């Protein structure tokens, strides 16, 4: 692994550790936000696909 790639991996691991150290309620709020985005994307994708089929 090159040193620049090593740095990227290390910084990603540091972010993961930081997220894991948040209170669990905060982590759940992040999951809630991800779910809201996923639902919103699905609604838009569905409306686009029905527009295409009309």
């Amino acid at each position, binding site marked *: 692994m090159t040193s620049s790639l090593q740095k990227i991996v290390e910084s990603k691991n540091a972010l993961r550790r930081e997220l894991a150290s948040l209170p669990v309620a905060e982590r759940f709020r992040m*999951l809630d936000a991800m779910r809201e985005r996923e639902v919103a994307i699905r609604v838009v994708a569905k409306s686009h696909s029905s527009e295409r089929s009309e």
Partner: protein
Amino acid sequence: MSIREVIATINQMEADGVIDRYAIGGAVGATFYLEPVATLDIDVFVAFRGEPGQLLVSPKPIFDYLASHGCSMKGEYVMISGWPVQFLPPTGPLVEEALAEAVDSDVDGLTARVFRAEHLAAIALQTGRAKDKARVLQFLEQQVLDTEMFLEIVHRFDLVDAWAKFERQFLADTP
């Protein structure tokens, strides 16, 4: 849309006697120990109650209760506070033990019962899909497992071969 509200609803179901004991597993269970793990649903393991006069246990009382509290059904899921929630019976001895030994965890003043990290990792190892293997790696990398307890579970539930294969595949080159 709130996992906290889902937990409150399930706690109420337990208090109202609809379910005997529950524990959260899957990605939401893993999020108690790791960074947030993206997921589409919430897995809740429950010991289903048998209905009087019936030999087979049924999830019907759960669905009836939740329907009477305004929740809708979507396939095998119940929508609670915007989340698809799946109520699952223990699928084998490992999950039965995970449910029996699940621990209480605080979520903003609310108590939630969740599988131990060691059981979650062992269940992921047993399930063995790519995303499950990724989850085992997350548990190892974040060093949240009691290694002795995890390996004891691996041995007791006949997962030694799966663990050896996992070690060869993913841990052999770890610096």
